[in-house]
């Protein structure tokens, strides 16, 4: 039994969770709705600013990827954590086009092979996981794209260095000030989302590679398979 001056009531007010008091649902709802409002506005604003400032850079990046494919090259994608999901997503977009009439294009997610990645991590070090696969698969004229919200992931930077030695086209999606991806000179096309929020950066990256994927196919349209003579003269439909 508590004594009268043990301050129980005051402590319950200050630390409700210690006394099995649940949150006030009404206040909680107000806070949650406000959070949705602020974060959605921030997300929209981040994208608006990025695309206003980087439209030409996106077109340039799309041209570089289109050139890789015109020369029958392939793309390699890499990232860590949530950014590795973006790398996987990027590859799926190119391999499995959802718009009718667009060809499947070769793109390889460098984090997809668990056996390979755990072997290199265990035997050599995590910073080498992408390098080894580039050594094994990549050819001159292929492209390498990396996703890093800080722009400073060691394993990405090691892969970019290897990619430059192998004469690959390099692209990067970064955040903040772009980090080493921006400053190293190893990334030919570095798209930097000027935000410190991992979430806002990654949301913008998704929109960015969706647009680039679209641009690449537009740029490749002229080099798709030949149209037969009959079709060029027009059908009777």
């Amino acid at each position, binding site marked *: 039994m508590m004594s009268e001056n043990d301050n129980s009531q005051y402590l319950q*007010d200050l630390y*409700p969770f210690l006394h099995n008091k649940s949150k006030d649902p009404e206040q909680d709802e107000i806070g949650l709705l406000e959070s949705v409002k602020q974060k959605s506005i921030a997300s929209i604003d981040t994208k608006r600013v990025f695309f206003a400032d980087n439209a030409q850079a996106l077109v340039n990046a799309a041209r570089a990827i289109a050139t890789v494919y015109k020369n029958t090259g392939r793309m390699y994608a890499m990232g860590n954590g949530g950014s590795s999901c973006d790398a996987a997503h990027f590859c799926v977009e190119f391999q499995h086009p959802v718009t009718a009439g667009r060809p499947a294009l070769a793109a390889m997610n460098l984090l997809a092979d668990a056996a390979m990645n755990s072997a290199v991590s265990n035997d050599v070090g995590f910073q080498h996981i992408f390098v080894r696969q580039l050594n094994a698969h990549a050819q001159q004229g292929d492209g390498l794209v990396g996703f890093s919200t800080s722009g400073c992931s060691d394993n990405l930077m090691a892969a970019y260095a290897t990619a430059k030695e192998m004469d690959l086209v390099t692209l990067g999606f970064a955040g903040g000030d772009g980090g080493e991806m921006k400053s190293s000179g190893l990334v030919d096309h570095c798209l930097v989302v000027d935000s410190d929020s991992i979430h806002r950066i990654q949301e913008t990256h998704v929109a960015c590679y969706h647009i680039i994927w679209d641009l690449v196919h537009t740029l490749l349209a002229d080099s798709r398979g030949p149209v037969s003579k009959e079709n060029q003269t027009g059908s009777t439909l």
Partner: protein
Amino acid sequence: MKFVDEFRDTEKAKSLTKAIHQIALNLAPNLTKPLQIMEFCGGHTHTIFRYGIEQMLPDNIEMVHGPGCPVCVLPMGRVDDCVALAEQPDVIFTTFGDAMRVPGSKKSLLQAKADGADIRMTYSPMDALNIARNNPDKEVIFFGLGFETTMPSSAFTVLQAERENISNFSLFCNHITTVPTIKAVLDSPDMQLDGFLAPGHVAMVTGERPFDFIALDYHKPIVITGFEPLDILHSLWMVLQQIEQGRSVVENQYTRIVQPNGNTPALEAISQVFEIREFFEWRGLGSIDHSGVRMKASYAAYDAEKKFAVPNLKIADPKSCQCGEVVKGVIKPWDCKIFGTKCNPENPMGALMVSSEGACAAYYNNGYHEKETA
């Protein structure tokens, strides 16, 4: 000096250090990793580095420096809110001095002062109230910042303003609480802590009981600790004794200050003026449920968030900062990618570099720039 010198006695420190080493030796055969003891409070971190305590400890005992520096954990958006309030016309914005340098997304309060805002450093919220008395044509806002330790003085000041009917004073309440944050650290999936030194000055207000759950539910020893070097060594010895004996209870080393039930008038004032926020954003740790307070609706007339248009922006921590990992003990400050380079006391990027009581600032200022120098 009474109550100071006797807690800095060299011979007693040697004796306690020897006892700590002996327990560490006894425990060594059963340890698979070093014991990690978190001192939650930035004041403790400061003492540990000022007196070189970490270097006196055995290799199998590591101090983990917790998030108990309210200046450090203040989110960037809140600093922006302060600047926005301070730059309003006819406002005198008052604050404790250590909040002046905390970086916002665009500028600190110090930079805002340089730009012309009327920002004044005070030693107490009562000083701010005095400024309000002497400047009836101005709105005086006090930046209420700190844990349970400083909450009572903010609450008493609001109550005093109400008693005197001083209508040009208001509080921008950013007070936060330690206990939910310790729980958040304990609930973290990568938590590796073996015991705690509890913040003595928080316990002075709250008493011992809010820390019971740490021992009862998480089975971690915890000792309420004073701020002199012998207090730290004595408390560490007490924690290690609990570990050796397989106990986990709340013990009070700081008995000269902390009463078991805390300070009733202080808790009463807190309860009268403040209520719990459903969640509060911490720099480095993110949003933690029930970890901050706001002013009750009945004191809206003294609530700067109600009186003024506060932008209330959410600004994310810099991506490259690893303050969260440091405060959970997963990495040491020197393991952070930007420690000592992009992030330093002159240009702090992470929470723990902002105040001298932050772990990263303590490491940097005391020359522990990389592992080999420690």
